[in-house]
């Protein structure tokens, strides 16, 4: 059965098209202001990439904060459910799933079938979300992709107090004024964000194995402090972690 999963996220819209368990193609575009247009573009480009016509897609599942605006969807898939199913697809050993999107950080405890057992979503602010690192990269005038590798070159631990992105940014400015090395600041930023996520993991209980999804999964500066903080041997990250929820939606659509 060929299904498509569409994640209409706050920042990016992603599409994954699958033939049962096999990924046929995927695509990602910036969501921008018009969620419907982003969905249309992402879906059409994904079809082109897979050399498929729309009538070949038997079912479409939509997830993400804009899922209600995905008019072509047959199934509205809860974001947490999509995460659980995707983590289970990538790693059947997954029991805790972390998904850091641009506006939300989430941790989910799942069972051997990828079904949700418990979950926590950040409530207070963006300090547990991808936009936190983006804002800090701007403050440091460092490319987003460089932030993680830069953090790994630091061996200094500098605590950051601010729980809020805006105040964290002024804390970073304070560190810049104090001539703190950029790599040390980058590490402080990643450690701070990782500690928020670790607290969320602890709230549902640390159940190995831990899988990280969302674009932040590509950032080693974020994965390393989580591993260190939780004292686990390995954190599992799929090859293209940002496509996790869309893939989960495609899997649920096939059920």
């Amino acid at each position, binding site marked *: 059965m060929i299904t498509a999963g569409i994640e209409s996220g706050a920042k990016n819209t992603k599409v994954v098209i699958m033939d049962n368990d096999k990924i046929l193609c995927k695509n990602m575009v910036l969501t921008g202001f018009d969620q419907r247009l982003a969905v249309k573009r992402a879906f059409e480009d994904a079809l082109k990439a897979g050399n498929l016509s729309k009538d070949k897609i038997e079912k479409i599942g939509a997830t993400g904060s804009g899922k209600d605006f995905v008019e072509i969807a047959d199934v509205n898939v*809860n974001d947490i459910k999509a995460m659980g199913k995707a983590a289970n697809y990538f790693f059947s050993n997954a029991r805790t799933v972390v998904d850091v999107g641009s506006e939300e950080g989430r941790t989910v405890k799942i069972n051997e079938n990828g*079904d*949700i057992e418990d979950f926590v979503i950040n409530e207070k602010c963006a300090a547990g979300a991808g936009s936190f690192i983006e804002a800090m990269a701007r403050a440091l005038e460092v490319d987003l992709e460089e932030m993680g590798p830069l953090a790994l070159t630091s061996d200094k631990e500098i605590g950051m107090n601010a729980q809020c992105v805006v105040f964290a940014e002024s804390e970073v400015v304070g560190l810049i004024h104090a001539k703190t090395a950029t790599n040390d600041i980058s590490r402080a930023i990643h450690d701070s964000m990782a500690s928020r996520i670790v607290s969320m993991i602890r709230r549902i209980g640390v159940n190995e194995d831990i899988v990280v999804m969302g674009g932040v999964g590509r950032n080693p500066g974020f994965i390393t402090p989580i591993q260190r903080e939780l004292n686990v041997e390995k954190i599992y990250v799929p090859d293209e972690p940002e496509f996790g929820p869309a893939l989960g939606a495609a899997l649920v659509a096939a059920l």
Partner: protein
Amino acid sequence: MNILHKFHEISNNSNSYIKKIKKEKNKIIIGSLCSFVPEEIINAANAVSYRILPAHHTTLFANLHLQSYSCGYIRSVLEEKISGRLDFLDAVIFPHTCDSIQRLSDIWRMTQSGIHFDILFPAKLNTKSSKEYLIKILLRFKSELEQKFSITISDLNIKKSIFLINNIKNNIKKIYNIREKNPLILKGKDIFAVQKAGTFMDKKEFLSMLLELIAELEEKFLKQKSPKGRKRLIISGNICSISNIYSFIEDLKADIIWDDLCIGSKYFENKIDENQKNIFKAIAEKYFKKSICPAKHLGIRNRGEYLLKIIKKKKIDGVIFLFLKFCDPHSFDYPYLKEMLNKEKIPCLLIETEIFEKNTTRIKTRYQAFLEIINKI
């Protein structure tokens, strides 16, 4: 207009309702901030107890007096006062329950005009000395009320008020009992409107409307079959001002069939003993058996045990904790409550909201995931 529409109409227009009552019935209107207010004494003074509920207005002035960690409710109440939208109140009562209400009382006294009462409730509600103290506090409140408004509050009128308010509570419970058996005959947003109206309406008028509603519901109950396969949830927390919280759940084939809210079961489950000769002792004792507010103490695990009791009795599938952001008393209790529920394998969900939540998508996402868990059990 049918009775339910009338409840919604009044509930949505509390200020215009109360202004009309004041004009037509010549009643004293006393604002209050919490369900701990002894409304039996107020009613006996020919006054109406008006629970100040959150309003949909942007905060323009209250932030001058409050810190960023104050809850939205406190902020909204102060904003309404400063903006002059509470000018119909003849007095305001601050029951000393949570820190925020106590501090708001100080700010109010220093910066706002008008008659102001503090009722200094004891923190512990399970000792002999605190009960003796509370009786004195209630007597003092009665005499302060008499002095400020040059009135006399007779014991007979207090007794009549106790009887009237107990009657109201019995009837709200009756509605809950009908809903529990068939939640589809009265939607969550409707029971919410009824409860909200009850926080400020003239007691006699409210009772007569309740009786009319019950007659309608009983008739409906006989005709309409109870739904099957829907999940039964309970909501616990502080003041709930988002009525569509209920409809989101109902769309997912589940119903909030009971609650542990101040403007909910916590109100009607605590009645005053009508046979007690010493009426002030009787009123004080109500607080000592009250399903407890997290700002007060009635035993270390009292709230958790109470919740588990309801869960068993009402065959509840899951608990939704709905807290206002920055509500310390509830947030401090949450970890132990969750632990107690986890031990009993009762799923629970925590949602923190602003007074009027704009981003309802995030709430729906949490509800859906929560129902996923419950449906798998």
